[in-house]
Every structure is written in structure tokens, then in C-alpha cells.
């Protein structure tokens, strides 16, 4: 029985949650300080230990270079992607390029891959669960945004392995939320999950038929989230400050962090109280050495105007999802809001207006995903629980063709698991291997899609060109992860498959990371937080941005 438990982990951009099922009910687990939302922040301390969670979040400012946050924005991405470029501009930690266009984080002189960073967050979640249960845990269901592509899912799964977890399932966050809502409720409904998280936006439309949860369609935007709301406030604060003092706060990463924290708080305050007072003491000093404070007041109206276009963008995504499901907003029976930013009145009002429906009450938008993950983990472990999730693939699967184009193999919103075969032939006499590139995306141009990898097949019969037929099977499994295999059509001989280009980690890398992760000690407690005031002597010196 010892290994008969599996936890559900919501690995979020800004906050993570861990949950288990106790007596048939999902419970979100607190850490030793009673916190249930744990910041997805990893702070590498001088003594070699690693601090994860809300206490690490305090280090974002004080130990900016060694504290990594929002790693989920970078996981499974290529170094040349826009998101990585954007992160390099604003993140205080060092982002460097690794092998194969991969992204690495440099902390002191140590390089970490993104799965390794996420694995530390998962390790913390695992530790919280183990402490709560008083026994080891090694199985988990981990959630990802529905719109994650194969690279990102694969990387998340790797992170789980590195953290010593057997990842039973990579579950889509909206699907998890729907599961938490519909589990054991015996409903027959069409529900919309509006999931506005810290870094991503997802919308999924599900049809719940008792114990079958069928995703009709999903759509999303991996570049839209609560952070973008903060960005708007930051821009406004910085512009305001610039106009008044001619100092550009954006030139210092330290000031940016102060700004970010202030903006986040302002966003929350505006949502709760209708107005927010921003006060950043000692944010910087000017050329003459005078220390400045940042003060501002943000009203609800101002805020709404700042972020209106972002909110509008979410409904474009909703349009897309409804269209794919061939439904209209009126066909929807219930709307479930997921993610912290959905607490904002502007979001709630807009959702109400768009769907002409009151969003469901009584659902904790921060925890519902973790609860769904726990329920799924429980269902997988327990033969008696019967819930069946039928998810879809969020992106079309494509193969590269000549001239930088792609051809679609599996359409988006196809239910998974699914496989599809395509026959290829050789183009030269005596050809011994065939290569294909696999992409995900909605464009027929290869450079507008995300490349998943290059597969090389060998070991088939050698013959004249055009004679040898190789049947390549593309499979998307229940995790939404793509597998490719090939066989000689005539002989049925399975060919060998090599991935010659990929963004992922090699098996050797993972094994090494697992060891390293096991040796890393998690720092407990807030003792490591630097006492306030110590960092004051490193106040940045801002050059005057505008001269006379």
C-alpha cells in the first residue's frame, strides 16, 4: 500500500499547488506554515541549498541573480523564440544558450536546464505532500496549460522524472478544473473553462456526460496571462516616474523587480478595493545621490482602460474555441473561472457579458486545477473509480515538406489518443535512410510552426527509388505527447527511429539531473531571507534618462 498514493500537482507560472484525495475528497495540502499556494520561485542559496516557495519569492529582489521565477514561460522553448528574448530583457537571472538552441539558466557558475528548475519546484511539492502524509510519495499527475505543445509537455514530464516522480499523466489544466467540478456530480452539461493564469490563457469547452469528460475543443494563448496585466501597470508607473523625475526605472533590473512587485500588489488591491495606492520606498537614487520614492494611486477605471485590450484578446480565443466546437455562447451550460486574475472584476464582468451567464460560484480559482489533478491521480490508481477523460490535441501536427512548407497530419482538436499513418517513399536509388521533420502549429509554413524534432528512419529494405514504401505512424497519446514510429510497408519490418534534432534533454542528461536533484537539499523556512535594509547599500544609480 505504501506506493499506492499519487498526488496531483498544479505546476503554475507563478504559483503551484499540490493536492491529494482523502476519503474521496480532494484536499489541497498546506506546507508547515499553512500556505497552500506556493510561489513557483527557486532561490539558490550560498550554502548550496535551494529555497522554493513564498519565502523564495522574497529573494527575487534581494538575491535577484540567483533566484529564478516564471520558469514555466521558458520551459520547452528554443533559445531563439520570442518568449525567451523577452524574458532575457526583463529577468534578473541569467539566461544563456545551451546545446541545440536550448535555454539554460546560469546561477553562479552552474548551468541549469529549465526542467531542472521546474523539478526543484516539483521536489518542494513532493516534500510538502510527504510531510503531510508522513510517507514517501513517488507518483504524480502534473498539469500543464492545454495549449502547451509537445516540447513543453515533454519538458514538464522530464521535470517530473528529475524530481523523482513517476508522472502518471500530463493533464491539461482546464480539463483538470472540469474534472474537479464534475467529479461525482452526475451532471450532463456543457461547460466552458476560462483559465487565465499567471502566464498563459486557456479556454476549453467540455461536455460532461456523467463519468465521461469529453473535451470538445480547446484554444489558448501561451503569451497572455496575469503577468501581462502587471506589465501594463509597471509601464504606467515607470512612465509616470519618468515624466516626473526624468529617471527611467526600466534601466535597472533591480528597480524592475520593485516595480513588478508593486504592480502585482496594485492589481490585487484594485480588484479587491477598487483602488490601489502604490508606494515603493527608496526605489532608486538620482545622479546627485538623492534617494527617491515611488508613489502613485491607481483607480479601477484607469486599470480597466489599461488592460481592456488584454481582456478582449481572451474572448477572441473563446470565439475560436466555440467555433471549433461548433457551438455558440448560448449553448454553454456553465462557465468556470480558473486562475488568480479571474478574480478581477473586469474579467468577471466581461465573462458574464460574453457568455450571458453568471460564472459558477464557490470554486477556488487557485486550487481547482490541483484538485482535478489529484482526482485524476486517484482515479488512475484506483480501479473502482471510473472517470474517463477524452482530451484533444490543441495544435495540428504537421510534417515538413519541400521548400519550407508543412503538411497537416493530425488536425487540432482531434480526440486523443490517436494515430495516423502516412506512407513515404525513397527519392534515391539505394537510399538507406529517410528523414522527416515534425512540427506543431496552424500555419503551413514551417517557420511559423514549432519544430518538435527531426526523425530519421533506417533499417528498411534498400531498393530503387520510389519502390520502397515506409509507413510512418504519428501517435499522440493521452498526455498529448507525440510519438513517431515507422515500418516498411511490404515487409512489415519496423525501422529504427532516431531523433536527430530536438529541444529536449537526452537520457543521459536526465539521469545526471535526477542524481543532482536528489542531492540538492531544500532549505526550510524563512531564516534565509535577508533582513531588510541590507540591500539598501546597493541602490542603483540611475543616469538621467532625458537630458535637458
Amino acid at each position, binding site marked *: 500500500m505504501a506506493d499506492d498514493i499519487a498526488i496531483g500537482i498544479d505546476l503554475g507560472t507563478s504559483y503551484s499547488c499540490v493536492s491529494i484525495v482523502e476519503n474521496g475528497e480532494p484536499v489541497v495540502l498546506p506546507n508547515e506554515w499553512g500556505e497552500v499556494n506556493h510561489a513557483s520561485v527557486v532561490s539558490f542559496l550560498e550554502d548550496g541549498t535551494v529555497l522554493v516557495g513564498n519565502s523564495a519569492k522574497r529573494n527575487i529582489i534581494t538575491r535577484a541573480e540567483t533566484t529564478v521565477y516564471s520558469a514555466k514561460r521558458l520551459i520547452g522553448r528554443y533559445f531563439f523564440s*520570442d518568449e525567451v*528574448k523577452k524574458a*532575457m*530583457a526583463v529577468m534578473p537571472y541569467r539566461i544563456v*544558450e545551451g546545446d541545440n*538552441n536550448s535555454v539554460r539558466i546560469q546561477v553562479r557558475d552552474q548551468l541549469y536546464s529549465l526542467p531542472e528548475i521546474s523539478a526543484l519546484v516539483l521536489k518542494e511539492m513532493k516534500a510538502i505532500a510527504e510531510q503531510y502524509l508522513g510517507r514517501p510519495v513517488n507518483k504524480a499527475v502534473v498539469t500543464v496549460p492545454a495549449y502547451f505543445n509537445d516540447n513543453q509537455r*515533454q519538458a514538464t514530464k522530464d521535470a517530473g522524472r528529475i524530481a523523482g516522480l513517476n508522472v*502518471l499523466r500530463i493533464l491539461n489544466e482546464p480539463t483538470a478544473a472540469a474534472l474537479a467540478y464534475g467529479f461525482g456530480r452526475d451532471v*450532463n452539461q456543457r461547460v466552458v473553462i476560462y483559465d487565465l493564469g499567471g502566464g498563459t490563457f486557456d479556454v476549453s469547452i467540455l*461536455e460532461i*456526460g456523467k463519468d465521461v469528460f*469529453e473535451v470538445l475543443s480547446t484554444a489558448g494563448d501561451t503569451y497572455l496571462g496575469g503577468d501581462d496585466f502587471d506589465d501594463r501597470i509597471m509601464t504606467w508607473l515607470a512612465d509616470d516616474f519618468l515624466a516626473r523625475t526624468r529617471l527611467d526605472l526600466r534601466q535597472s533590473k533591480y528597480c524592475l523587480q520593485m516595480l513588478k512587485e508593486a504592480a502585482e500588489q496594485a492589481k490585487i488591491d484594485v480588484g479587491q478595493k477598487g483602488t490601489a495606492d502604490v508606494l515603493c520606498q527608496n526605489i532608486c537614487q538620482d545622479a546627485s545621490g538623492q534617494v527617491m520614492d515611488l508613489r502613485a494611486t491607481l483607480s479601477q477605471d484607469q486599470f480597466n482602460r489599461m488592460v481592456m485590450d488584454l481582456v478582449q484578446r481572451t474572448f477572441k480565443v473563446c470565439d475560436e474555441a466555440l467555433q471549433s*466546437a*461548433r*457551438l455558440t455562447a448560448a449553448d454553454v451550460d456553465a462557465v468556470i473561472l480558473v486562475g488568480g486574475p479571474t478574480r478581477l472584476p473586469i474579467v468577471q464582468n466581461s465573462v458574464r457579458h460574453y457568455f450571458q451567464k453568471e460564472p459558477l460560484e464557490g470554486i477556488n480559482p487557485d486550487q481547482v486545477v490541483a484538485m482535478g489533478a489529484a482526482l485524476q491521480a486517484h*482515479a488512475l*490508481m484506483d480501479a473502482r473509480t471510473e*472517470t*474517463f*477523460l*477524452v482530451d484533444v490535441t490543441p495544435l495540428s501536427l504537421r*510534417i515538413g*515538406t*519541400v*521548400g*519550407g512548407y508543412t*503538411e497537416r497530419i493530425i488536425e487540432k482538436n482531434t*480526440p486523443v489518443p*490517436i*494515430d495516423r499513418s502516412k*506512407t513515404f*517513399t525513397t*527519392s*534515391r*536509388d539505394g537510399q538507406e*535512410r529517410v*528523414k*522527416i*521533420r515534425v512540427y506543431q502549429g496552424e500555419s*503551413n509554413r514551417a517557420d511559423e510552426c514549432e519544430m518538435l*524534432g*527531426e526523425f*530519421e528512419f533506417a533499417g528498411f529494405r534498400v531498393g*530503387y527509388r*520510389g519502390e520502397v*514504401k*515506409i509507413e510512418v505512424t504519428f501517435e499522440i497519446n*493521452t498526455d498529448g505527447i507525440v*510519438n513517431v*514510429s515507422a515500418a516498411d510497408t511490404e515487409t512489415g519490418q*519496423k525501422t*529504427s*527511429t*532516431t*531523433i536527430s*534534432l530536438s*529541444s*529536449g*534533454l*537526452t537520457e543521459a542528461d536526465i539521469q545526471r539531473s535526477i542524481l543532482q536533484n536528489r542531492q540538492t537539499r531544500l532549505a526550510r523556512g524563512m531564516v534565509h531571507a535577508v533582513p531588510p535594509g541590507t540591500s539598501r547599500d546597493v541602490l542603483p544609480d540611475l543616469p538621467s534618462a532625458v537630458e535637458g
Partner: protein
Amino acid sequence: MSEPPDKPGSGAPDSPGETPRKTTTQPLAPVDPSEVQEAGFETTGTFRDTPLPGVPKLDAPFPPAPPPGPKAGAAPPAGPPRPAAPRTALPRPGAAHGQATPPPRPGQPPGIGAAAPAPPPVPRTPTREQPAAGPPRTPTREGPAAPTAGTRSPPQAPLGSPTGEFLTEQARASGPAPQPGVVPARVFRPTDTPGKPAVPPLPSLGVNIAPVIPPLAPVKAGPPRTAAPRVPHRPTRDPMSETSIGIPVVPPLPPAEAGGPPPVAPVVPPVAPAATATPAPGDPESQVAWKAERLDTLDYFELLGVPTTASAGEVKRAFYTESRAYHPDRFFQLDDEAFKTRVHEVYKRVTEAYYVLRDDVRRKKYLADVSGPDRASKLRFDELSEKETIAQVKQQAAEQIGLNPKARQQFQTALGEIDRGNFVAAERGLKMALTYEPQNALYKEKLTEVQARLYEESRGKAFKIK
């Protein structure tokens, strides 16, 4: 470029016997030019725009990042859980394209062959010529075949106008009632067959199962759906299975729409006694084994256990029922990997069936495919590629009224003149239309028609004068 991309299917080299000594662009070329032309034409707008706004969005105080686009360079094998094999370098990476058409690009996979969507030797059913139980069966199967074909053609009519909303609405209205149509499919399980061991555990997911299946599948391309797959296993009960299976697959009542379950319900009784003969209807293992064996001989309707006339609501309910039975999560905690692989295999086909049947357009095409003569090769839906779909739409438009607006206008006027009986004017109009579009078959056809009428008229006149 070098060939007109008129025929979308011409990509496959049709004659394998011909030794490709000539340096013509046979294998690759037919795919390339159309690909390039079609796609290039469509996306020029976005293609030009994207590089500009994408990159410099941020005020970049950072060193210029490498240009987007995957670098094709030295890449050690990566990607952990995928099957990895020692990588060997390609002998001549760039030499794949001896053709003149496209200059080989550095990042392009050199070995990629022309995708052959429908090659003459069909991959799924390569060696179906099994002597096993073929000869005696064929005549019996010919019998029910006729009514099958007869009843299958009208299903479009009772389907009504199944728009997505309407049907799913229906599905909800009727709720998750147990789908009786499914029962026969699974209950009809010859557990006594040596079939189960005959299917060795598949080495991996998603691999061609064809070589495993042939001994069990003496289905020839010709005769359409019957109880064919079951026959070889239960020779003694042949007539019985003929009748009992014949009913669920082709319900004799065409108005299957009238109510969800009724048309399917009468199916259950005849099968139930048979089920008592074949043991253990509740045992999931044998259920899966039974279905896994027949995976390549069942069409999607049989797989989901619905009649070809089933409404979208029925399809959905059947899919839910099948999901409850074959969802891999149901067997997640089992240790038998081979069995789990088989479940996966079955369930993948179930989702595939649902994917095809829930969409009216795909379903229509599929129904036509499996009702046709080469049913055996079309049991799995072969989706047209985007390129082919576009070509098809264009061709249809061209066939109907023409592509050139002026030609279309002339043609319409000519049609009006024909209605008015003014054939001389109609001939003139059609000839004008043909000058704009000399290839249009419809115009030509109309023109010959009109000219025939004119000829008749002139003869009539001549006769009168006499």
C-alpha cells in the same frame, strides 16, 4: 513548376517496375510544385509580414539573438523517452535531390520522399489473399451483400440536416442511455477461438498491425460489409451469425431517426442467446482481445456499434459507451503491458472512428468509401491533405460555373437564352464563355447541346420549305 499540379494523386510513382534511370523528377517533383504553388500563393501576405513585427517588439538592450528558424547543425541525439538508437551520419546529406526543381536547402531533410497518399499497393491490407476460409464463404456473403448496398445508399435522407448544434442537442436530450447497438458487437465474442494467442503482443504502439491480422481477415476487396470478420471463427453458426449480425449493421427500418434506441433495440434479442453460448460477456480482457483482433476488418460504424444511419447523438453515445469499455485509464493499474498496448490500440481506433463520424463532411466521404467496391482498403479514413482539399474545391467550382467571372457571366446569359429558346444567342454566349475558359467541360457540353438543337432546327426549317 516542372509539371502541372493538376492531378493531386499523381505523387506516387505508379510503375515500380520501371527502373528510374532517367533523371526526370518522378518521385519528388509531383509533390513539390503543387505544394509550393498552392501554399506560396496563399500565404504571401503573412509570410512577408511576420519577420518584421515579430522580432523587434522589445526595446532590445541586449545583444542580437540568433535569427529564428531551427538551425540544422550538428545535433546529438536528444529527446529522452523516445526510442533512441545510435545515430549514424548520413552518407551524402545534401545529395538527395538530384532534381532541378528546388535548390536543396540546408535545413531540409534530404531523404524525405514524396508522400504517397494513395499508393496502389494499399498499406493497410497488403496480403489479404488468404486461402484460409475464403472459397466456401464468398457465395453466402454475396447474399446479404445486396440488401446491404441497397439500404446503405439512403442514409443521407433520414439524417436530415444534422448540424452540430441540433444533433448534440439531441444527444443531450436523450441522455447517456445505454447504447444497445454496441452489445452485439462485443457480446459476439468467440472466446473459444485460438485467436487470442494468435495475436502476439505488439512490439510497440502505432505500428502496422496488418501482418498480424491477415490470417483472420480473408475479406476481399469486393463484397461489402457483412459478418465477414466473424465467419472464419464460427463456421458452424454461419447462417445464424449472418442473420443476427446482418441486422445491427444494416437495420431494415430506414427511418432510424425516429427515436434513438428503438431501431437498435431489436438487435439485442437475437444476439443474447448467442451470448449465452459464448461465455463471459463482462470480462474486459476477452472483450479487448476480441476487438483488437478485428480492428482492421471493422469499419467505424461496426467499431462503434452504430448503424450507418445513426444520428450524431447516437454516435456520441456510442463513443461514450466505448470509452467506458476501452479507455486505457480503466486498465491503468494493470501490469500486463501487452494487454495495455492492445487496449491502447483499440481505443485509438475508437477515437479515430468518432473523429470521422462526428463530422458530417468526413462521415459522408467515409460512408461513400466503405460502401464502394474497394471497401477493404478504405476502412481507415484517409483524409485529404489541405492541398488536395483546396484543389478539390477549386476544381468543383470550376466544374460548376467556371472560374473566370466574365465567362461565368456569358454562361449565365447563355443559359437564359436557352430557356427562352433563343439558341443562336445562346450559342454565341457559350462561344464567348469558351474564349475565356477554353477548358471548361460544362461550357463545351452545353455548346454541343445547343449546336445540336440549332442543327435540328435548321433541318426542320429546310423540311418545311420543301
